């Protein structure tokens, strides 16, 4: 069971299903039946077929070789950093650059093991602050600003 239900197999199965679904989506559109090289789907279909073929080979190799991925040292840390980074990249447009960057720093630095609150706050505020000063107020290339003030 372990041979089949491991991270490598699951990820490769997910890739195979994705490629299959994308291949299926190339049919049934108004331009799908256009002749060979004229068809917008001609090239992507070749690539998706190659993707699926290689995916099957990689999957078989993985199952036969019983390869293991590296262990995660701390699920909490990786979870916090991944979620923080994904939320951060999502909210910059709506909440501005400065505030999300400060919050991201306040979350990420302790996750990476910085325990000194003074250092955490100083870095979390100083780096985004310096970038806002540089880009918004010196170079005239404004980063997104928050809904509260046009200054940052």
């Amino acid at each position, binding site marked *: 069971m372990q041979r089949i239900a491991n991270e490598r197999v699951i990820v490769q199965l997910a890739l195979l299903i994705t490629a299959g679904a994308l291949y299926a989506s190339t049919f049934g559109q108004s331009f799908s039946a256009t002749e060979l*090289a*004229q068809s917008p789907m001609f090239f992507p279909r070749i690539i998706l077929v190659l993707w699926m073929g290689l995916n099957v080979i990689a999957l078989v190799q993985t199952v036969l070789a019983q390869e293991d991925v590296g262990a995660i*040292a701390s699920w909490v840390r990786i979870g916090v950093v991944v979620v923080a980074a994904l939320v951060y990249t999502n909210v910059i447009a709506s909440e501005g650059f400065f505030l999300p960057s400060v919050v991201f720093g306040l979350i990420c630095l302790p996750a990476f093991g910085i325990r000194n609150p003074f250092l955490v706050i100083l870095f979390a505020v100083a780096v985004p602050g310096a970038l806002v000063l540089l880009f918004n107020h010196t170079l005239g290339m404004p980063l997104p600003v928050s809904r509260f003030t046009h200054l940052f």
Partner: protein
Amino acid sequence: MLSYLPEAIGILLSLEGLLVLVLGTAIGIVLGAMPGIGSTVAVAIVLPFTLTMSQAPAIILLLAVYAGSVYGGSIAAILINTPGTPQSAATCLDGYPMAKRGEAGLALGWATVASVIGGLVSAVVLIFAAPQLAAFALEFGPIETFALILLGMTCIVSVSTGSLVKGLMAGMIGIFLSTVGGDPILGEMRFTFGNWQLFAGFNLLAVVIGVFALSEVFIRASAPISRVSELVAFNGIVLPSWSMWKGRLRNLGKSVFIGNVIGVLPGTGAATAAFISYAEGRRSSPNKDGFGEGEPDGIVSSEAANNAVTGGALVPTMALGIPGDAITAVMLATLTLHGITPGPKLVDDNPALIASIFAGFFIINLLLLPLGMLLSRVAAPILRIREAFMMTAIVILCAVGIFFVRGNPFDLLVMGAAGFVGFLLRRQGFPMAPLVIGMVLGPTLELTLRQGLILTDGNFLAFFTGHPIALVLAIAAVLALSLPILRAIFGRRPQ
């Protein structure tokens, strides 16, 4: 191109030109010295600053950061036994033992001189080889271009560290990502699923920075927190005297040659060149017995070769529009951002620009010597910065960089998603360089294949019957693709 040299020198001697040359090289050295940043991330971090610049200074800044970071990697390799960049991994083998016996300054001196000589020779190769290659490629029609891109794609095989199948698969994923958005011939939308943000396709730089920089942060977060490395005693660079070079010049020349040849081949990269050169040095150097125990020839082999790659790698990038690795892929994307179309016509259409870029690259390599001597003292304490600060700063700087590329918040989402997917794929052993190369070359591959098929009424074999250049390139592509596969299959038999 020489007739444009006065104009090029004018650009380089302007305030903006001098600033980008000096600051770019300095920033590159410092960023390259910081383990975990690497040349690709260093170039990506600096990218937003180029958007307000004119074409030549923008490209020169990126080249300065690229060359500076390759050299800077040797500082960390020698002082803390951790290569700042993968290219400097071979430098650790002799640099650190030398530093441990109290010769850190001299070890860095060997690395600096070897890097400068390697870089300068590669700049000369670039200046002479790129225009010739581009002039030859100007004759190419869509069929020849298709065969050329096919050959370029085979570099995916050589950049596929670990599993070849996974490397090829990553390449296919990259090519597929390049097909999202408008079809190049009919303009129909593909794989957008009604999302207008995808009409222009995925932004290359958002994907590149996501899969390289952001995924690196996630990988560091998944590993045990690293301790701050101990520095060896270091009081500045000591340059080797003339007498110390006796018996080592042949090794230097050979290393520079290996670096240049490997650099010109798409996909091989500086790390491969450094290790091949190191292995050759260990085989043929008169001082081979000392290799691995602090032998200067080991440092010279690695550093001369990895810096010689920088100019060589730019030859196919500038002359043909084929990136050799992720860094040159970022460079190509930057050229596009500045309204320059990469490819064989680049040299012909922009002679003054190319002259200033090439002359700038030569000066950058000259600057490595004084700036290396000056900045190694500054960079040494930086090596002790905690990983947490570097990783947090990388995410913030990447967000700034991607936002400035198009000012489109959707690119930030793409970067985040690419970072997460890149993290998952890298954990499973998928190399990311093939994905990026596939994404860069995919559009031209598709366009030329379809144009060729339309010209030959759908007869693919006709691509090669009436086009000898295409035939030669296709045979070279098949050989380049099959040799590593055969080696992988038959190489295991003795075991």
